[in-house]
């Protein structure tokens, strides 16, 4: 630094005299200013609680409180406690208490979350086939009443119920503010409730359990005037639940002319189609990957 100055200002006797004097003046000015002391704040505070920050010294000063959801300024008298109201520290995180006169001093502290007061429960899917392993997933996040994520471990109870009966129950500790699980669906179609609870806090999510793929498809045929009416037995899954209306059933007629197919939605539990008769035709039925019994059609006597 000195070499730089010497290079820029060669043989400057006046400035060489002025620089030390200027430096001395700056030092004296700084020294003469009132030095504010570091405020004393607690290391941690629970969200939503009131407390005090002590500001040593005497005279008047400006006090700033800066946090994740808060910034404020007030004039204070040094040597006294500054009262921080509960609503000023609702958000968890790092705060700074800054006291300024001519200079400033600061203290940092952390606001930690309060007790759990709300659960955010994400459950997927809302509609699930019966008897599927790990088909339902749930994740619970714990929040306090100020919507701070509660990071201290807590035990969450999960329960899956249907028609008032418990299908599944498990307790799991939260980790980093979250607990999650996967669970299989029940045997019977209908409404199931997945509940997460901690103490008196309870959150329910409804999962609609629907019949799985059809099982044991069976058809019967009946001659009408000019055609054949093909109809399934009531279509059920392997647990005996009625497959929902709208599920597509495919009828296929195979004869010497080739193949023709008809897609029919299930209505009131059965699927029905009309097909033109032909000698030696075979009618088969399928829904998804499930096939039913084929029927051979003979010529009208």
């Amino acid at each position, binding site marked *: 630094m000195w070499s730089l100055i010497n290079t820029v200002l060669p043989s400057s006797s006046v*400035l060489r005299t002025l620089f030390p004097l200027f430096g001395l003046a700056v030092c004296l000015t700084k020294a003469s200013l009132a030095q504010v002391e570091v405020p004393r704040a607690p290391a941690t505070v629970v969200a939503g609680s009131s407390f005090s920050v002590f500001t040593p010294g005497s005279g008047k000063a400006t006090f700033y409180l800066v946090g994740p959801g808060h*910034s404020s300024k007030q004039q204070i008298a040094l040597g006294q406690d500054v009262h921080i109201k509960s609503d000023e520290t609702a958000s968890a995180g790092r705060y700074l208490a800054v006291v300024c006169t001519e200079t400033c001093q600061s203290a940092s502290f952390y606001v930690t979350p309060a007790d759990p007061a709300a659960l955010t429960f994400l459950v997927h899917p809302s509609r699930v086939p019966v008897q599927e392993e790990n088909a339902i997933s749930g*994740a619970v996040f714990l929040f306090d009443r100020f919507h701070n994520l509660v990071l201290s471990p807590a035990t969450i109870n999960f329960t899956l119920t249907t028609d008032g009966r418990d299908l599944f129950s498990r307790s799991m500790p939260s980790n980093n503010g979250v607990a999650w699980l996967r669970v299989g669906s029940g045997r019977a179609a209908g409404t199931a409730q997945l509940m997460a609870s901690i103490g008196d806090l309870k959150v329910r999510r409804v999962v609609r359990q629907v019949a799985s793929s059809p099982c044991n498809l069976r058809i019967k045929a009946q001659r009408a005037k000019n055609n054949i009416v093909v109809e399934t037995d009531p279509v059920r899954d392997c647990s005996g639940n009625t497959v929902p209306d709208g599920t597509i059933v495919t009828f296929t007629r195979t004869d010497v002319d080739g193949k023709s197919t008809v897609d029919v939605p299930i209505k009131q539990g059965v699927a029905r189609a009309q097909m033109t008769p032909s000698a030696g035709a075979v009618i088969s039925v399928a829904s998804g990957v499930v096939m039913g019994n084929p029927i051979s059609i003979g010529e009208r006597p």
Partner: protein
Amino acid sequence: MKIIFKEMMLLLITTFVVLTISLLVQISTSESLPRVESDFRKAAPRTVEDLTQQSITRDYGFAWERLDRALSSNSPWLLEAYFVGPAKVRLANAIAGQESSGMQSHYLNQNHKLEAVFYSPEGDVMELHDTAQYDLQLVADGKHIQDEHVVLHYVVLMTPAADRWVVRQMQAVPQF
């Protein structure tokens, strides 16, 4: 007399050049994007897809860049694109407080080390730990009241939006 005048002029020019350079350095730093390093190996129960990793890293950096701009100019609308829910509400409250007390905050020279710790089974929320380093400057009524280099730990919840990941929760903690 001539020599003194010349020397004074030289001194003034040098001071001006030094001040201009330092100002330019500060401006270019505050406008540069935060550096974000990310690690998704510990994410569970769902594995984080490659494209999602890229999106998270990119969008988290953009979020902090917006946060810096919003808090240094007291412009809450800058939060819109990358913050939602409680994170946005809190930052907006902080900006309102800053505005009424004549303050601004600057988050300079940001470096973030991001680690995913939870990725929900259906991919609709991710929890991350960020070890952030930056120079925090607080300015009140035109005067620097705080100037510090900080290393802070943040717990972050991000959720997917239409075309990006957004910050839903951001909470500084003493340690992970």
